[in-house]
């Protein structure tokens, strides 16, 4: 196996690894701004400079030359080389922390900072700014730059992003992302030299659905997400990793939240699903987690405690012969399994369906045209719901049928999720339903007409599994505490099964997983 020495550490490697990645895998950080593993190499920031040496071989004998101490001599290249661009070869010796490199790095940082406004107190990037971190770690404590700093005219580049060109360090990640990943040529380097800008065409705008990633990969605060402007200092936020539920792709995301409110979503690296990215549609839909949330249950439009709501629901279901069930593919696979069993064994009915969207009806697992990640199906777990069997039985009504004429059923069990609320008119007929039982994390006008309305936990407040459009199963855990008395949907169903005399005994997610053989 080929070997390379980085800072006296001998590392074996195979293939043709990137030096920055190889070093990182071995616990050695080579600082960088413009390098990004998913983008082409630009080599412009000069932050990742390393010393590159090769072992000295005697031309005639082919033997390695040795010094007085018997160590093989190393020939270092006269100039430091960018680590991002350095081809690794067997026997190579790399120094990332020699005196020379430390000096070179300091020097590069001094230039990077020279025209940077240092407006960290009002910059949203502060706290997660690579320039800030590197300055602290590798930079001078004081700058000798006493000149007037360069400024740029402010440009509107899109509604999603705010550009502060004065902060830009010209690393070009954003432009490379736009052409290489988003496949759009709406953002690029223009002008020249110290007047060089990253910009849209005059009067133009960025239109792709992945702009938030440009802010994510911007190492400084030159591109920030307009929605998050001045909302919070990032160090006051808490973080949790979960999944995006805004389509069938199920990108891994991180919530940033404070006092129970979500402030933003960012993508989390997930090799199988979204790699480094997420779409703006999903990113900006975090808001539904904060708005019109339900913390308590009601019956007949009046507040009710959980037990009385449960009893009422059990009575309705016992008394109803003809029950329509509109499930939701925002619910976890675990809930779907319990739900499916409930309406087979406890309150049997053929009128069960999760498909409220056309893409679900068509079982469409494709992406929207021109999209990198966003699926046509707006639900994160349609395939979990399908696997759980939440489909109409023989002669059963579809979800669309039930939504169209809910009055035909003795009782209707309705899961209300953010998508069906957003879709607007779908629920228009539901006030006609007799004995409506609602399960939802959100308040809605149906709370007043429903016989029973349960407050359920949003996905960010619970655990579960989603199956995405590619059949990939992904678990998620709660990142926020539940609101008030909100319950997990599976919990409500499990308790109803007890009240209705056919107790499942599935009172934990673990029990559900093992009962339905869903793995741990």
């Amino acid at each position, binding site marked *: 196996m080929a070997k390379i020495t980085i800072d006296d550490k001998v590392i074996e490697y195979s293939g043709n690894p990137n030096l920055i990645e190889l070093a990182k895998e071995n616990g050695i950080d080579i600082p960088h701004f413009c390098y990004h593993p998913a983008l082409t190499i630009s080599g412009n920031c000069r932050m990742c400079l390393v010393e590159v040496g090769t072992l000295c071989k005697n031309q005639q004998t082919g033997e390695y030359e040795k010094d007085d101490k018997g160590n093989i001599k190393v020939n270092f290249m006269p100039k430091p080389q960018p680590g991002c661009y350095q081809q690794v070869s067997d026997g190579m010796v790399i120094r990332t922390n020699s005196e020379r490199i430390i000096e070179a790095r300091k020097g590069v940082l001094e230039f990077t900072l020279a025209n940077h406004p240092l407006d960290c107190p009002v910059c949203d990037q502060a706290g997660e700014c690579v320039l800030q971190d590197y300055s602290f770690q590798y930079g001078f404590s004081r700058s000798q730059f006493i000149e007037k700093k360069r400024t740029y005219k402010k440009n509107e580049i899109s509604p999603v992003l705010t550009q502060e060109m004065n902060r830009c360090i010209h690393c070009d990640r954003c432009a490379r992302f736009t052409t290489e990943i988003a496949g759009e040529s709406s953002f690029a*380097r223009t002008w020249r030299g110290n007047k060089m800008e990253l910009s849209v065409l005059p009067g*133009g705008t960025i239109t792709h659905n992945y702009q938030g990633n440009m802010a994510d990969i911007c190492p400084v605060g030159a591109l920030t997400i307009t929605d998050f402007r001045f909302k919070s200092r990032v160090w006051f936020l808490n973080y949790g990793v979960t999944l995006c539920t805004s389509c069938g792709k199920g990108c891994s995301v991180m919530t940033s939240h404070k006092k129970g409110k979500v402030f933003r979503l960012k993508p989390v690296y997930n090799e199988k699903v979204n790699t480094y990215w997420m779409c703006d549609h999903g990113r900006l839909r975090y808001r539904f987690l904060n708005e019109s949330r339900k913390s308590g249950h009601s019956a007949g439009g009046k507040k009710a405690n959980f037990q009385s709501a449960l009893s009422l629901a059990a009575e309705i279901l016992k008394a109803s012969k003809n029950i329509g069930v509109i499930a939701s593919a925002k619910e976890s696979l675990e809930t779907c399994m319990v739900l499916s069993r409930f309406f087979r064994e406890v309150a049997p009915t053929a009128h069960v369906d999760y498909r409220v969207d056309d893409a679900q009806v068509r079982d469409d697992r494709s992406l929207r045209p021109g999209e990198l990640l966003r699926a046509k199906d707006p639900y994160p777990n349609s395939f979990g719901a399908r696997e759980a069997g939440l489909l109409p039985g023989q002669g059963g009504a579809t979800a669309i049928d039930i939504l169209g004429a809910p009055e035909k059923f003795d009782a209707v069990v309705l899961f209300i999720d953010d998508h069906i609320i957003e879709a607007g008119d779908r629920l228009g007929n539901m006030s006609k339903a007799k004995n409506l039982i609602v399960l939802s994390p959100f308040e809605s006008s149906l709370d007043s007409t429903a016989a029973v309305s349960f407050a359920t936990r949003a996905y960010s407040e619970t655990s579960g599994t989603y199956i995405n459009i590619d059949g990939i199963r992904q678990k998620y855990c709660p990142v926020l505490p539940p609101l008030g008395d909100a319950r997990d949907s599976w919990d409500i169903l499990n308790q109803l099964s007890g009240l209705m005399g056919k107790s499942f005994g599935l009172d934990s997610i673990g029990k559900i997983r093992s009962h339905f053989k869903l793995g741990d």
Partner: protein
Amino acid sequence: MSFAYTDVSMKEFQELQKNFPGDAKGKMSLVIPALWLSQRQNGWINGDVVEYVAGLTGTEPLHVWGVATFYSMFNKEPVGKTLLQFCTNISCGLLGGNELIQHACSRLGIEKGGTTQDKKFTIFEVECLGACGTAPVVQVNDTYHENMTMEKLDSLIDQMSS
């Protein structure tokens, strides 16, 4: 207000196409020549020119704009009919280039980079024109005027004013 080549420009463009491979890479090579033809016709590179050149060369408008803004000879603003470009770099500067541009500015009543109100003249201070042996040099539109003196400059401006 859109831009399109005249027949003459289009014919030249079509001739130029033969100089490059017919694939997308070869077409991109035409961006700079196409901008030159546009500038000759239109005087400067505006948004319409950018769109037009992108269409001709199968490139994106932002690419064309990135190219136009990289090269200093593409005018990103309108210029006068006569573009006076004074070199003030080393040898021209040593031999009176600065005095010449000052003289031209005061005579025409404009600053460096400015255009006269009648749109007849624009004055640019430019970098080395590569004719240092005959310094000082003034490039008037495409033509070099070498060993320039105040007198020659005055008569040049007289000639161009009429």
